């Protein structure tokens, strides 16, 4: 009997196919990065230029014309703060649901998720009015509150699924040894759930950084995030692709690199622990 190959496709073909597909999918981003180092004329040359002397002028000009650093700082502050506050509110809730399960727990979880299904635009008018009345329009505080609230259901869900994985026997053993609830949390549950907390935090950081709807509608020159800055480059005409690319690259590079380093945790987190 002829020995059946272990793999459906020989190694060489698999490797080639995987690389071709990957490079095709990555191409738009690679192209964007290339464009950022071209002059405006090189950026629209026909046929496209592959080889050129790179320039850093675009980056300098983006900073000078639209104050990149201000928007970057806003993005950083709003995403970090909304994540930290979100974790502080979501962790006790998830802990309570995972370890003191009641007959309402399931409904509560589903209800939380259902608030996330509501399109943000549905709440736009009231939130806008509220933000205006409370002077939170175009402030970082306003964005932090909104980002935090809109991520909260996902945070509770993720943390809940991580806490669920901690075996009850460990907790019972701690209780038998006379640990108080605080000790039980601080010494046992918390260290065991640290990976879960990290994944949840990482994911919310990415989600907040990339949030466009609320920052587009509630912030502009003062509290605007990078998503706002980029949208301001969307004017229909104008051959300014090199600058647009530079601004885009500066907006996504921090979070993409961050994502590369934490991708394993991120993916595991996003599955709500349902996939191993």
């Amino acid at each position: 009997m002829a020995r059946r190959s272990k793999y459906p496709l020989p190694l060489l073909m698999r490797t080639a196919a995987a690389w071709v597909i990957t490079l095709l999918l990555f191409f738009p981003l690679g192209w964007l990065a290339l464009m950022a180092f071209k002059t405006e004329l090189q950026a629209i040359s026909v046929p496209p230029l592959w080889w050129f002397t790179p320039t850093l002028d675009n980056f300098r000009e983006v900073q000078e014309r639209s104050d990149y650093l201000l928007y970057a700082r806003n993005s950083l502050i709003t995403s970090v703060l909304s994540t930290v506050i979100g974790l502080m509110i979501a962790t006790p809730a998830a802990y309570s649901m995972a370890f003191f399960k009641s007959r309402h727990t399931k409904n509560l979880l589903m209800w939380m998720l259902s608030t996330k299904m509501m399109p943000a635009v549905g709440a736009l008018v009231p939130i806008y009015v509220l933000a205006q009345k409370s002077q939170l329009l175009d402030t970082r505080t306003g964005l932090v509150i909104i980002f935090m609230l809109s991520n909260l259901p996902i945070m509770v869900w993720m943390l809940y699924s991580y806490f669920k994985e901690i075996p009850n026997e460990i907790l019972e053993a701690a209780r038998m040894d006379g640990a108080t609830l605080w000790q039980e949390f601080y010494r046992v549950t918390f260290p065991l759930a640290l990976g879960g907390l990290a994944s949840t935090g990482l994911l919310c950081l990415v989600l907040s950084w990339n949030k466009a709807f609320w920052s587009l509608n509630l912030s502009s020159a003062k509290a605007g995030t990078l998503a706002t800055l980029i949208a301001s480059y969307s004017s229909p005409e104008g051959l300014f692709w090199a600058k647009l690319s530079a601004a885009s690259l500066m907006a996504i590079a921090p979070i993409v690199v961050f994502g590369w380093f934490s991708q394993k945790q991120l993916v595991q987190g996003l599955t709500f622990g349902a996939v191993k």
Partner: protein
Amino acid sequence: MNRLLPRLLLTPAVATLLLWMLVPLAMTVYFSVIRYNLMQPDQTGFNGLENFEYFLTDPSFSAAVLNTILLLGSVIVITVVLGMGLALLIDEAFPGRAVVRLLLISPFFVMPTVNALLWKHMMMHPIYGVLAQVSIFFGFTPVEWLSDHPLVSIIIMVSWQWLPFAALIFMTALQSMNREQLEAARMDGATYLQQLRYLYIPHLGRPVAVVVMIELIFLLSVFAEIYTTTGGGPGDASTNVAFLIFKQALLNFDAGVASAGALFAVLLANIAAAFLIRLVGKDLDK
């Protein structure tokens, strides 16, 4: 066990979410039955169901519902099918697999406004865009993506962003396949198609549910991609429900009609949520 403590721990999250849901909802209900046009502040007062009638009989409305469903359905099918293919392709080791993984996941971290502008200008531009240049190279007429196929363009952008996500979830799931079972099937001479049919695809059932659930949550309200590229047009060709409400509120300044539309969106969200509960609710009982 003390019964107060669990509730106390739950309170901050439940209370904030309740406020986050109820206050805007109550205000929306109120706005939806009054005359509330930001450009005509002198016109006020109760006007019954007129806003609803206006929103629901607007010819854009049915187009927007259809577009929402088309967008949602296409992206889910594309990402699940291609994501599964990709995951199976890179499941076994090959040279450079770690780098491939990193490159593949990158689009998922790109913010929607950058994604939209990148595709609008550098990929789909009918003269200078890469796609146009490729068509010319092969002797075809370049496609006017955003004006001739606006919805397809949006579907491409959103799928590009979410395909890596689906692929990585499936990849993670495949890592936990029972290797001995697979080996046994191979020894017994199962063809690759048979392995797919009886081993791989059944194993991916739950991950598919997870992908569908998360994409439902995020894609029901696709906004930035439409806002920064087609602006919903031409006509209503790429307007989804979320964008239609936005148009009513900020382009027509009619907060009343927009609120009526928002209530419709809440209804839509609840239908989707009911579907979700069927999909994942079972798992919560274990």
